[in-house]
């Protein structure tokens, strides 16, 4: 079948009678089947997707379909969908079936989107390469010797391999933007609180956000608009009104952009990534935007701060996996202690255990002030500094990642090296701001894609996405 790269393209093809929604869905199912070796999908909801496609096709024909009719969406395996399995790619949730749908999923369905399946990820969204899944690594569709990034590696790979139009991922420290960069797709991490976390399996509750990965900014914006907004089921969801993100009115003005000096001079930065980033800065200036260097002296402290806080939150969140109420129980559970200990020891993977142990350490008596409380203070410094920068600048820019996708197994021996993958992305999660990764570049050496990241002040998604949409549609800015 023909591959579609935007919702408007699908909607037009259907309304012109060139195709039907069931045919579009069948095409995606065929692509999923053809790309099985990439290990993207944990489960495909074939029968029900086709059923729903028929129903929505009828609505389209009758002229009463909703805004996302035609959108075929894959969801990360940490999003609950009533009556469907979900497991955060972990053995500890073996066999678990959702009793309710995440608010984001519910809102997509209400707008006539089709959920085509659930996709692989790093276990409990902990990882930067999708090599931490208990269901095996996802391979990068652009070159299967390379990782797709993580933790939303399956989501990025699903979009890149045309197995869906849009995918939902979650981003705690870069888990949407980094795989988007590695797979050459658009990834959006919304403002903290913009999208309800109800039904998202918790990793670090003050960092986690659900967001879209798509071929273009337009589709990502349409989906974000639908899933955003206040939700009674998540008290941290924001009551700030949701703008019309996908109208892109007002995105064309000249902007004031700060590029983060410490990112550009970072020793981990690949020379080609750096060169192309500097080229983009020049091109933006030529377009009339003001682009200036800004300082973020704290850059090297961002990832350590992030690890103290997220592991602390994770150790607490993951204490619910007790081998009793749901999920996996060890066959060697003989009393209450061994039910907890054996089930958790057998059910969690190595990276998850590492993070639970570190989180328990930073929260434990005697170390709490020196680590956890300290990191919370650093987080305030970073947040306030970021707010100050946004008083002066519309956007902050940096490369999304220091380099392109790496080969499978290249970083698995060294957790710190893997953690530093997130060096440019954790900033937005620490400060709670929105950020996008745009796939503007290809690496000169091996032609793998990489992205540029733009951040805005909280709840400025409309301006950020409008600007991003313009960039993506300016051919001279592309590599």
């Amino acid at each position, binding site marked *: 079948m023909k591959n579609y790269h935007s919702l408007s393209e699908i909607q037009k093809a259907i309304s012109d009678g060139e195709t039907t929604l069931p045919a579009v869905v069948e095409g995606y199912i065929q692509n999923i089947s053809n790309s099985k070796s990439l290990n993207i999908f944990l489960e495909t909801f074939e029968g029900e997707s086709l059923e729903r496609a028929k129903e929505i096709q009828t609505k389209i024909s009758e002229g009463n379909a909703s805004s996302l009719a035609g959108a075929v969406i894959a969801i990360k395996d940490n999003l609950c969908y009533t009556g469907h399995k979900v497991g955060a790619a972990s053995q500890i949730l073996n066999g678990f079936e959702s009793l309710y749908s995440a608010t984001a999923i519910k809102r997509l369905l209400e707008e006539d989107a089709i959920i085509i399946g659930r996709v692989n990820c790093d276990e409990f969204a902990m990882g930067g390469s999708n090599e931490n899944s208990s269901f095996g690594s996802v391979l990068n569709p652009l070159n299967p010797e390379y990782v797709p990034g993580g933790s939303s590696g399956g989501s990025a790979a699903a979009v890149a391999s045309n197995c869906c139009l849009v995918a939902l991922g979650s981003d705690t420290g870069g888990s949407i933007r980094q795989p988007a960069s590695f797979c050459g797709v658009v990834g959006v991490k919304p403002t903290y609180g913009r999208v309800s976390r109800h039904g998202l399996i918790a990793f670090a509750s003050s960092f986690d956000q659900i967001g879209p990965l798509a071929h273009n900014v337009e589709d990502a914006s349409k989906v974000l608009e639908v899933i955003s907004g206040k939700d009674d089921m998540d008290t941290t969801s924001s009551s700030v009104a949701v703008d019309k993100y996908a109208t892109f009115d007002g995105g064309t003005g000249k902007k004031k952009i700060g590029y983060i000096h410490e990112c550009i001079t970072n020793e981990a930065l690949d020379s080609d990534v750096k060169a192309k980033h500097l080229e983009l800065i020049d091109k933006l200036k030529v377009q009339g935007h003001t682009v200036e260097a800004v300082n973020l002296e704290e850059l090297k402290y961002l990832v350590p701060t992030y690890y103290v806080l997220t592991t602390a939150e994770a150790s607490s969140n993951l204490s619910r996996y007790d081998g009793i109420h749901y999920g996996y129980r060890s066959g060697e559970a003989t009393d209450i202690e061994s039910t907890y200990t054996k089930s958790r020891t057998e059910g969690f993977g190595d990276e998850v255990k590492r993070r639970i142990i570190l989180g328990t350490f930073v929260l434990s008596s005697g170390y709490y002030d020196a680590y956890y409380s300290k990191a919370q203070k650093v987080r305030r410094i970073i947040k306030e500094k970021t707010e100050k920068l946004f008083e002066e600048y519309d956007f902050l820019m940096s490369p999304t990642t220091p380099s392109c996708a790496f080969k499978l197994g290249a970083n698995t021996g060294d*957790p710190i090296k893997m953690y530093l993958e997130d060096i440019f992305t954790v900033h937005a999660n620490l400060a709670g701001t929105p950020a996008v990764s745009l796939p503007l570049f290809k690496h000169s050496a091996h032609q793998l894609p990489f992205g540029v990241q733009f951040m805005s002040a909280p709840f400025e998604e409309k301006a950020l996405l409008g600007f991003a949409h313009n960039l993506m549609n300016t051919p001279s800015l592309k590599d």
Partner: protein
Amino acid sequence: MRQHLENGSKSASSIKFALMKVDEQLIDKLAKLSRLEFKDADKEAILKDMERMIAFVDQLEELDTEGVEPLIHVSEEVNVYRPDEVTEELTQEQALKNAPKHDSFYFKVPKVVENPDDK
């Protein structure tokens, strides 16, 4: 903000970092608190990883945070209330559905009345 960096490293808690040693005893204590078990080779690996990870996060000590309030909530929402009404979100059957062992009314666990230390 800049003086946070320049004033550098001295605060009351810095002594703690210098003395921080990751040993088997600490791993055992953390494992017990986390209800996890590490045996032999696994214990060596987690000890090594923890040494590296703690050294990594120890960098934070270089920043002066004197007088800075810890940031606890990122959300700007305040006093989010809901009516105090009882609703049945899940039925008993649903609540028990995903349990590894259950009967019609209860989650089932191994016998708990014996103290394992007395065996």
